[in-house]
C-alpha cells in the first residue's frame, strides 16, 4: 500500500470520532492528505481558509522547533483548530467544536500522530 493510503487509515479513524469535524495532514514534503470520508465541518468557507493557509505557518514557526514545538491551538468563535506537529515541517490538523471535550480528543490525536509517525518511520 502506498504511504499516502496508509496515512489515510488513522485519519479516517480520527474523523469517525463524534466531535472531530475535519482532519488532515499537511507538510512540505508530503503535501496535503485528507481522509476519504467527507469532512463534517459545515462552514465551507472556513474549511477552504484552513486548507489554503495552514502550510503558510511552517516558515513562521520553523525557528520554534528547536524549543520542542509540539502543538498550536487556534480558538475561533465556534471551532478550535489543533495543529499537532508530527515531524519537522509536517502537522496533523484537527478541527473540533469550541465546546468539545478537547482533552479526550487530544488523546486520540496523539494516537493518530503516533500511527502516522510509524508509517513514515519517523
Amino acid at each position, binding site marked *: 500500500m502506498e504511504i499516502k493510503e496508509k496515512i489515510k487509515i488513522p485519519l479516517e479513524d480520527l474523523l469517525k470520532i463524534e466531535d472531530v469535524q475535519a482532519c488532515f495532514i499537511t507538510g512540505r514534503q508530503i503535501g496535503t492528505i485528507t481522509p476519504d470520508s467527507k469532512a463534517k465541518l459545515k462552514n465551507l468557507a472556513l474549511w477552504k481558509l484552513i486548507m489554503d493557509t495552514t502550510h503558510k505557518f511552517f516558515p513562521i514557526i520553523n525557528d520554534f522547533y528547536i524549543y520542542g514545538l509540539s502543538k498550536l491551538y487556534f480558538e475561533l468563535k465556534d471551532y478550535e483548530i489543533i495543529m499537532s506537529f508530527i515531524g519537522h515541517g509536517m502537522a496533523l490538523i484537527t478541527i473540533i467544536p469550541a465546546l468539545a471535550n478537547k482533552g479526550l480528543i487530544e*488523546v486520540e490525536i496523539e494516537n493518530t500522530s503516533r500511527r502516522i509517525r510509524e508509517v513514515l518511520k519517523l
Partner: protein
Amino acid sequence: MNKNNNKTDFKACVEVSRKWEGEKVAEELINKIKNEVLNPKFILLFATIEYKNEFKKILSGIKTKFPDSPLIGGTVAGFITPQGCYTRGVTALALEYHNMDIAVGIGHNTKRNPKKAAKTCAEMIKKGLKNSKWKNKFLYIVNSGVMIPRFPLIGQKSVIKSKLAGKVMALFSESLTKFQCGIGREEEILEELVKLLPDYYIFGSSSYDNNKMIINYQFLNEEVVTNTIVAIGISSDLKTQINTSYGLKQTGIDFEATKLTFGKRAIQEINGKPAVKELLKIMKWPEDILNERIHRVTYYTPLGFEKKGILYPEVMGFFMGDSIICGYRIENPRISLLSASGKSILDSVDENLITFKNKNNLIFLMTSCSVRLETIGGKIFRIHEKILNHLKNTPFLLLYGAGEDVYIPEKEVYYHINEALNIASIYKER
C-alpha cells in the same frame, strides 16, 4: 508485556481492540485473551461510548467463546492499559486462578432507589459465595454515573443564569427519581454495600460517556443495561491493597457552605450569601467566566472537604442561578478550594505506585476521574510511561469514569470521590 502468568498458577491479561465493528472487536479480544488465559474465572470489559451500537455484538461474541466466564463492565471516558492510552476503543481484562470463587451481582434503578439496588446486588454476591472456603473477599463494582437531563427549550447546559434556574433546579431534582436522569447517587450505594458486605474490599468506578453526560451503560454477561450496579465478588487466597492519591493542592482559600440543598449536593449559600456570586468574589473571577467553557476552569479548581481524615474532592458540575451543583453529598460544610495542575496529576502517579513496591503484585486495577483525563489531555501518555516504569510486566487496567469507590475494611474507611487516582493491587503473600 500485558500478561502475568509466571508467578504461581495465576494468569491474567489486559487486551485492547480498536476495530470499529462489534464482531471484529469480539474476535480480536477473544484471540488475544486465548493466547494468555484459556479459561478465565471472569472477564471485565469496558468500552468507550462510540461503540454503543456494537455492545451487544461484542458481548455475545465474547460470551459465545467464554460461556462459563462471568463478565461485567460498562462504558468509560477512556482507559490506559500496558498497550497505550485510549479515549476510543474496547478493553478486556481476563483472569484465571485456581484458588478463587466468583459470584456476580446486579441491582437496578440505582438513581431511583440506590439502597435497594445495592441490597439486591449484595445479596446475590453473598449467596453466590456462601460456600466458598477462601477467606479473602474483594468486590469489583461498576455503577451508573451522572446523566444530565435535556430540558425542553433549554437543552443540556452547565450554566443557567436566568430566572428559569429555580424551575430547572426543581425539574433536575424531579427527573432523578422520575426518569432516572441526574447524579449517580453512588455514595448511597457504597454506604449500603459496606453495611451488607463489611468483610469485602470494595473497589470500582462509575460508568460514563465522552464527558457529555448523556448516557452510560453497564454490562452483565450479554446484557446491556443502564442505571444499574453490576459487581463481581471474588473469594480467594489472594490479598488486596488499596491506595488513593490526589495530586491536588490546597489553595488556602476556605469557605463555609452555609446552605446546602438537593440532598446536600447543591451549595446555595456561601458564608450566608448567594453561592455563585460569593464564589466569584472569593476567586476574583469575572462574571463572564460563567459560560459553557466554565469546566475548563473548574476542572483545575475542585472543591474539597474532609471527613474522618479523608479528602473528598468535588467537581463543580453546574451553576444554576445562585446554586453550585456538585456530584455527591457534601458531608462537611467547611470547604476548601483545591488546585490541580498537569504536574501535580503526574506526580500523584509516582506517589501512589511507590506504596506497592516490594509486594508480590499479580495485577493492578486502577480507577480515576475523567476530569483528570480531560485536564491532562494528550499528556496522559506520560502517566502511561510512569506506570510501565513502576509495574514493568505486571498487568494493569486504569479506567477513567465518573467517580471512584473505595472501601478498605481493616481501616474502616469508605469513600466515593472525584478527581483522584485509586489503585488496588491483588497480590499473593510471599
